[in-house]
C-alpha cells in the first residue's frame, strides 16, 4: 500500500472518530402523538383534583408539612389536601423548559419544549455481559458505564446511579459516583437523593465545578425524586427534595406506580393517581423556591396479576405513557418517562421487542427527559453492557426519526431525477455523491451482509457483535479534559468529606 493512501486512511479514521464523540442533540419536529382527546385528559385531570382534595397526599417531613401549611394547604396529620386553585397557582410557577449545565458547555441540555434528552439506566445493583454473566455491580462497572455514555453521541446525559457500586461503603458511595461523572465525562449528570446530606454534598460539588452563583442561574444537577406510591412522599425523598429546591437545582418528580399493586387495576385510575401525586410534589417545590426547574415524571407500568411480578414493555405502560405526556403538556411542564424497558435477563429477542415497544411511544409522546434510555435489563435489576450499546444503536435511529422529513429543494433531488433515465440507478448521481455519507442512518451492530458473508465473518449474532463494540469503545476511551485546579479542588473536598464521614459510627 502506498504512503499517501495510508495517510488518507488515517485522515478518514480521524474524521470517523470525531463524528463518533460529538453529541447530537435531539429536537423532535413532528407533532407529539395525542392518544386521548382534550375531553378525556380533562376528565383525568378532574379525577386527580378530586384525589388531591378528598384523600390528599402524605408527606413524611415535619418541615415540609409546615411549608405546606404556611402556603394555606389543609394539613391534618401528615396528609395534605390541596384545592384545585392552589394546585394551579403553584404548579404554574415552574418553568416550561430550562437548561441544565454540563461541564463541557457544548453538552448543556435543554429540558422541555421539543427537546429530548437520553440518559443511561439508573439504579441496577447488578451488571451483565456476554463474557462474565450476571454479577454484582462495582465501582469499576460504574466507571465503565460512565465512559460508554460519554462515548455515545446518542446519549446526551451522564445520568445518575447508572449502577449501584456495591463494593464501595454505602455512606460514601455517592462521592465515588459523583466524582466519576465529573471526571470521566463532560456531560450533565444527576445528584444523589439517598439522603439530605448526600444531596447537600452533591450541591457542594456542583458549586466547586460550576460556581455557586452559576448553578442558581442555571441548574447543574437534575435529581430524581420518586413518590412512594400510593399517595406518599417519604422522609428520604423529601430530605433531598428540599435541599435541591432551595439551591434551585432541577428535580424530576416521579410517581413510581406498578398498576394493580401501587395503583388501581386500570390505566385511567392509575393515571389520575399519578397526576395527583406529581402535581402535589411539583406544587411543593414551587412553594419552597418559586421558579425551581422541575420535570413531571412518570414511571408507570403494571404487575402480572397472576404472579405478582412487575411487567415491563406491556401495552398498558405504553398507552399510559402517551396519556402521561399529555397530562404534563396540559400543565406546560417538561415530561420524563419511558426508556428501553425489558423484563428479559439477556439482550435477546424479548429484550429488543420490549425495549422498542416502549421506546417508540416514548419518542412519539415527545418525552423531554428519558432516563433508562440504554442498558436496562431484568426489570431494572441489571445493567447490561451489550444491551447498552445495542440500545444506543436504536437511539441513533430514533434521532433520525425525530427529525421528520426534510422537504427542501435539495431533498426533493430534482437534479437526480433529471440525471437518471427510467430503470436507471441513483448510485452515482451528483446528488448521491453530495449526500451518501449521511443520507441514511448506518447501523454498526446490525448486520447487512449476505448470508454467505455473514457465515464467513464468524456467524455472530447481535449480542456477540455488541460485546466487541463494548470492548472497542472502552479501549478507545480517553479522559475528557478538565481544569486541573477544579479537579484538585473536587478531589480535596471529597477526601476531606470522606474522612469526616469515616469518623462517624456507621448506621449500616
Amino acid at each position, binding site marked *: *500500500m*502506498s*504512503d*499517501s*493512501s495510508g495517510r*488518507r*486512511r488515517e485522515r*478518514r479514521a480521524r474524521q470517523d472518530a470525531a463524528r463518533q464523540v460529538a453529541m447530537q442533540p435531539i429536537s423532535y419536529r413532528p407533532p407529539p402523538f395525542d392518544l386521548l382527546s382534550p375531553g378525556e385528559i380533562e376528565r383525568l385531570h378532574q379525577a386527580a383534583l378530586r384525589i388531591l382534595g378528598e384523600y390528599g397526599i402524605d408527606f413524611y417531613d415535619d418541615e415540609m408539612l409546615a411549608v405546606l401549611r404556611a402556603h394555606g394547604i389543609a394539613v391534618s396529620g401528615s396528609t395534605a389536601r390541596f384545592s384545585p386553585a392552589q394546585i394551579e397557582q403553584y404548579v404554574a410557577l415552574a418553568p416550561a423548559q430550562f437548561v441544565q449545565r454540563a461541564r463541557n458547555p457544548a453538552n448543556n441540555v435543554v429540558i422541555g419544549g421539543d427537546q429530548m434528552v437520553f440518559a443511561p439506566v439508573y439504579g441496577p445493583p447488578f451488571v451483565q455481559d456476554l463474557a462474565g454473566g450476571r454479577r454484582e455491580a462495582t465501582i469499576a462497572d460504574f466507571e465503565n458505564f460512565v465512559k460508554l455514555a460519554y462515548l455515545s453521541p446518542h446519549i446526551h446525559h451522564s445520568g445518575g446511579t447508572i449502577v449501584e457500586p456495591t463494593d464501595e461503603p454505602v455512606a460514601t458511595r455517592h462521592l465515588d459516583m459523583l466524582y466519576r461523572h465529573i471526571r470521566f465525562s463532560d456531560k450533565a449528570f444527576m445528584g444523589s437523593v439517598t439522603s439530605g446530606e448526600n444531596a447537600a454534598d452533591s450541591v457542594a460539588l456542583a458549586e466547586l465545578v460550576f460556581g455557586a452563583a452559576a448553578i442558581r442561574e442555571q441548574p447543574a444537577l437534575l435529581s430524581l425524586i420518586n413518590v412512594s406510591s400510593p399517595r406518599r412522599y417519604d422522609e428520604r425523598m423529601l430530605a433531598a427534595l428540599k435541599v435541591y429546591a432551595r439551591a434551585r437545582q432541577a428535580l424530576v418528580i416521579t410517581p413510581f406506580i406498578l398498576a394493580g399493586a401501587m395503583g388501581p387495576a386500570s390505566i385511567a385510575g392509575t393515571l389520575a393517581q399519578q397526576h395527583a401525586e406529581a402535581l402535589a410534589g411539583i406544587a411543593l417545590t414551587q412553594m419552597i423556591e418559586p421558579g425551581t426547574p422541575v420535570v413531571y415524571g412518570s414511571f408507570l407500568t403494571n404487575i402480572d396479576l397472576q404472579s405478582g411480578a412487575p411487567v415491563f414493555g406491556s401495552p398498558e405502560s405504553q398507552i399510559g405513557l402517551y396519556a402521561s405526556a399529555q397530562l404534563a403538556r396540559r400543565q406546560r411542564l417538561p415530561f420524563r418517562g419511558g426508556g428501553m424497558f425489558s423484563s428479559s435477563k439477556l439482550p435477546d429477542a424479548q429484550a429488543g421487542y420490549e425495549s422498542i415497544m416502549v421506546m417508540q411511544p416514548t419518542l412519539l409522546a415527545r418525552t423531554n427527559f428519558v432516563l433508562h434510555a440504554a442498558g436496562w435489563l431484568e426489570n431494572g435489576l441489571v445493567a447490561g453492557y451489550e444491551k447498552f450499546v445495542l440500545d444506543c444503536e436504536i437511539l441513533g435511529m430514533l434521532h433520525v426519526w425525530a427529525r421528520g422529513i426534510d422537504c427542501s429543494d435539495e431533498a426533493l433531488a430534482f437534479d437526480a431525477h433529471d440525471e437518471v433515465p427510467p*430503470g436507471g*440507478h441513483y*448510485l*452515482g448521481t451528483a446528488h*448521491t*455523491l453530495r449526500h*451518501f*455519507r449521511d443520507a441514511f442512518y448506518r447501523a454498526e451492530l446490525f448486520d447487512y*451482509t*449476505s448470508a*454467505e*458473508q455473514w457465515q464467513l465473518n464468524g456467524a455472530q449474532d447481535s449480542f456477540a457483535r455488541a460485546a466487541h463494540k463494548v470492548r472497542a469503545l472502552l479501549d478507545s476511551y480517553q479522559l475528557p479534559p478538565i481544569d486541573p485546579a477544579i479537579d484538585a479542588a473536587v478531589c480535596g473536598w471529597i477526601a476531606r468529606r470522606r474522612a469526616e464521614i469515616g469518623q462517624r459510627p456507621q448506621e449500616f
Partner: protein
Amino acid sequence: MDPRELPDEELWLQMQDDLYDGERDAVCDAVRVALDRGHGPSTVLAEGLVAGMDIVGADFRDGVLFVPEVLLAANAMKAGMEILRPLLVETGAARIGTLVIGTVKGDIHDIGKNLVAMMMEGAGFEVINLGINNDAERFLGAVRQHRPDIIGMSALLTTTMPYMKVVIQALIDEGLRDQVFVMVGGAPVTESFARQVGADAYGRDAATAVELARGHMRQKLAS
C-alpha cells in the same frame, strides 16, 4: 499538482490517489504522462491503475469507502483503461479479460448486475453489458461476437433463475461451453444452485464476483 513534474515513483502514487478520489481527468493525464516517458502500457496498468484499484477494493471491503465512491473510482479506472487497451492489444501484453454480462430472460432487475459490471470495469475488465431480459440467443450471439473469457448471468426473481440453466445448455449444445467461464449471481442465487445449473462460479456480491473473475483469469493465463 502537475504530474509531469513528479519522479516515476511519485507519479504512480499520484495516479493511485487520483483513482481513489475518482478523479477521472487526473488519472488520464497521469496515464498519458507515464506513457510519454516510455513506460509500457502493462507497466502503467500494474503500477498505477491496478495497484490503485487494489486499495479501493480493500477500503470498500473494510467499510471505509461507500458504493458511490467506488463507482467514481471505477469510472476513472475505465477511462484510464480506454487509453491503455489499444496499446495493450498492440503490444500483445497480458489482457485482464473480457466479460459479457446480462440479466436473464424475464428479469428486468439490473441494478446489482450493473454494479458488478462497473466493478469489473474498475478492475480493468472489458465489459460487454447486454442489459436486461436476455434470452439464450442473445448470450450466444455475444459469445460468438466478442469471444469473452467470462459470461455473467444475474437474476433477482426465483421464477427467472432457472433460465440460467437454459443458457448454459445452449452453450453446451453449440459447443461453446468450454470457451467461457460461467458466473452467476443475484439475491436468491446460491452456491449449490450454481453447481446444479452447471455454472463455474457464484459471486455472492460484487466485490467477490470481481475476485473470482480475477482468479479465473490468473489461472487461465498461467495455463
